[in-house]
């Protein structure tokens, strides 16, 4: 977590997927402080997107902790602009939507995720049963 799903109509080539995943990782890390090894991006094609979008980004991200609406809006804005620049697309052709998931609902690598803002704990390899 976060897990970003990138929907497109046409299948993207490997280079495009790499560029987008790199951009998502950079921006999510910079805006939220989430460690890089927690940021996942997966690509799915065949989707007829609304508003003639070329790409729609669905982010399943943690909510709560220090994550304010301002942070969320900044993240959305930077992701749209960053991906548009990486792919040389008009930013109006990129859709974005987030689903907020509570950190304690999720485990990864035998750890329960911590609240946003307490990312230092993520690196300590906290075991499930000790939380």
């Amino acid at each position: 977590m976060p897990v970003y799903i990138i929907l497109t109509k046409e299948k993207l080539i490997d280079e495009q997927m790499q560029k987008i995943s790199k951009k998502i990782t950079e921006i999510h890390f910079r805006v939220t402080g989430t460690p890089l090894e927690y940021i996942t991006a997966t690509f799915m094609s065949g989707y007829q997107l609304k508003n003639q979008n070329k790409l729609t980004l669905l982010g399943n991200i943690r909510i709560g902790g220090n994550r304010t609406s301002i942070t969320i809006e900044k993240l959305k804005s930077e992701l749209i602009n960053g991906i548009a620049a990486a792919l040389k697309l008009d930013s109006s052709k990129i859709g974005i939507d987030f689903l907020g998931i509570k950190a304690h609902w999720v485990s990864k690598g035998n750890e329960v995720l911590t609240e946003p803002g307490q990312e230092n704990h993520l690196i300590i390899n906290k075991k499930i049963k000790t939380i």
Partner: protein
Amino acid sequence: MNKALITIIKGQFSDAQIRSLEQIVLQNYRIHISKGDLKIVWNLIPKGNTYRNSEIIQPSIISIGCEVGFPQESRLNMFESLSKDWLCITGQHNDDLIIAIIEAPAFEAFISKKSEHLTHYGKVKFYLNVMLGQVFNKARNGYYAFNSSF
């Protein structure tokens, strides 16, 4: 009936492994979450389409619906027990396993989120892919599955 959506890489596991994984998900669900039925659907991602920190990875993401206010102690027990059973069958590194036990309203939003961003025709095409994929895979392989890219 609660649902589970399990996202894996297409071809990563054999049909027999998937059926075994389905059994251990169901067993753990009945011990730790609910005695009721659980519909498990497998979402198959093409190989090479999932990245973490710029590297291609092959993760498994298990998302299961639960009731609102589900006790965290039971969730932790489910995480621990299911992780152990899953990794024993798959041999994956534990960093490649994500388990989310999500309260029902958020789980429904999670399931429907994709279709909210599709045109009318896109929704029809998507649901046909999901339904036909599930029927085909259930008949042929013994589990419900569909391709995430089509």
